[in-house]
């Protein structure tokens, strides 16, 4: 039950001022610039853009600064900001095959066209704290190696397997099928794969990671291989009606993951490999991998598998993946529930009174019985 209450305005005003002061911290320490956050905290920025479902590095940097590094709060700020802008329309689908690749690895094929390029990664590092970064002189440019690029094309691994018929082809709808959009209509069930992928792309990394992990530990039957992970820039094109052609808006960074799973086949379909797909803003491999595993899990029905695990439960997964919604409902518990609680309090008082009365009667009854014997 919600009732209007007054009071607390001054306390709130002062609390906000105090937050601003604490956010800034010691003023003898220089304030963070948005450029510093965008450049040096790239993974935080990627996460906020992904879960905020809005690609704009400077805005994400601002959100992170304003939220004091609370990335869910920052994603919330991004979601709120986007509601203030008009929607121009939909891009033509990005082509990850023409990506300016900065990293591309496959755990299934050693020698593949274009090779394995590691790019910027934490993999193969010892996870030891690097105290050189704490030193004052951090900021000196570290030279990196450069090699003449042989311009070899990097086809997607899944396209290579597809050529042999070993890989299920991508589902292709006829052009007329509308594409579901969660920002236009609220989520409803059953949810098709387009809606599921949109939901996962902006879902909470931690939630998807835990679900993906659960499928590996036996909650659901998957034995996935990282067919390919690639990260780099893709161009975004938008068909401008008034110009009559698709204009290139610029490039965004995305991470794509193709997770390959075995499929034993059925009476209609020969044994083949199936896939889960992950695509997220920025360099966010953990998220892209988790997304592809959960996408694959939720395809159980289409592939004739048994639903036995949480990660396969479409309604459960999609209803709880959005951390903005989740945090809204969990954190609203901080708001005054005085009247609700007063009602509960009265109820518990009454129940306790009844309980004690009953016990007293029982004790008296028992005593009387003993006396009678």
């Amino acid at each position, binding site marked *: 039950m919600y009732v209007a209450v007054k009071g607390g305005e001054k306390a709130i005003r002062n609390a906000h001022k105090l937050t601003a002061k604490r956010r800034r911290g010691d003023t003898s320490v220089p304030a963070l610039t948005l450029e510093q956050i965008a450049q040096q905290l790239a993974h935080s920025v990627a996460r906020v853009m992904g879960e905020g479902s*809005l690609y704009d590095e400077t805005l994400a940097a601002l959100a992170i600064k304003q939220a004091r590094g609370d990335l869910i709060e920052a994603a919330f700020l991004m979601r709120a900001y*986007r509601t203030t802008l008009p929607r121009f329309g939909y891009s033509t689908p990005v082509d990850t095959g023409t990506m300016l690749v900065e990293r591309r690895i496959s755990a299934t094929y050693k020698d593949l066209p274009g090779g394995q390029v*590691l790019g910027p990664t934490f993999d193969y590092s010892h996870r030891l704290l690097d105290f050189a970064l704490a030193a004052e002189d951090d900021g000196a440019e570290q030279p*990196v190696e450069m*090699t*003449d690029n042989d311009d070899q094309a990097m086809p997607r691994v899944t396209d290579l397997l597809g050529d042999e018929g070993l890989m299920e082809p991508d589902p292709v709808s006829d052009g007329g099928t509308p594409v579901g959009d969660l920002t236009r209509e609220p989520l409803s069930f059953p949810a098709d794969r387009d809606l599921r992928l949109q939901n996962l792309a902006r879902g909470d990394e931690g939630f998807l990671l835990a679900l993906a992990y659960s499928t590996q530990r036996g909650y659901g039957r998957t034995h996935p291989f990282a067919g390919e992970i690639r990260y780099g820039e893709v161009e975004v094109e*938008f068909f*401008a009606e008034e110009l009559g052609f698709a204009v290139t808006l610029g490039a965004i960074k995305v991470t794509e993951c193709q997770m390959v799973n075995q499929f034993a086949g059925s009476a209609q379909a020969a044994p083949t490999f199936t896939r889960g797909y992950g695509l997220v*803003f920025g360099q966010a491999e953990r998220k892209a991998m988790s997304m592809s595993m959960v996408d694959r899990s939720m395809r159980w029905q289409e592939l004739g598998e048994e639903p036995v695990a949480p990660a396969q439960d479409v309604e459960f997964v999609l209803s709880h993946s959005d951390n903005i919604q989740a945090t809204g409902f969990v954190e609203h518990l901080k708001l005054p529930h005085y009247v609700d609680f007063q009602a509960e309090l009265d109820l518990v008082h009454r129940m306790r009174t009844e309980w004690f009365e009953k016990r007293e009667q029982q004790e008296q009854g028992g005593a009387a019985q003993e006396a009678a014997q």
Partner: protein
Amino acid sequence: MSETTVEDRTGKIPDVSPKNSSGDRKKIMATLAAATPEAVSGKYENLALPSFDLVRQPETGLVMVRGRMGGTGSPFNLGEVTVTRCVVRLETGETGSAYSLGRSKKKALHSAVIDALWQRPETRALIEKDIIAPLAAAQQTAKETVRQETAATKVDFFTMVRGDN
């Protein structure tokens, strides 16, 4: 991205031949879109500016980016990007448009004027030589740097031969 670096590492200069097909205009607009607001205004300020009207005020909005299931399959909505657009008309009649990622209204306005000037036969060569070619070359150089830095992290596998003794 430094737009003062005109030399392309590979010596490739983007093809911007003066034809008025939408393909060429698309390339011009894409080059402007890919440049930083500072790079565009740096070029814009050196121009002898014509008078023009705003057909569409610089406006920031959203475009929903789509991906494809599995990379090549049916489309789905990935997430939005901020986009700023603008349309101007020169007093000589040419209409210039700009669309680019981000929220810079100044860049959108400058890019739209440059696009309009590119459509004017009298100023096209100048725009291509002084603005588009250096911007495109700098972009090409930056991409080539990324390619070469990335190529240095390519794995060369070798097989250990196991000896019998």
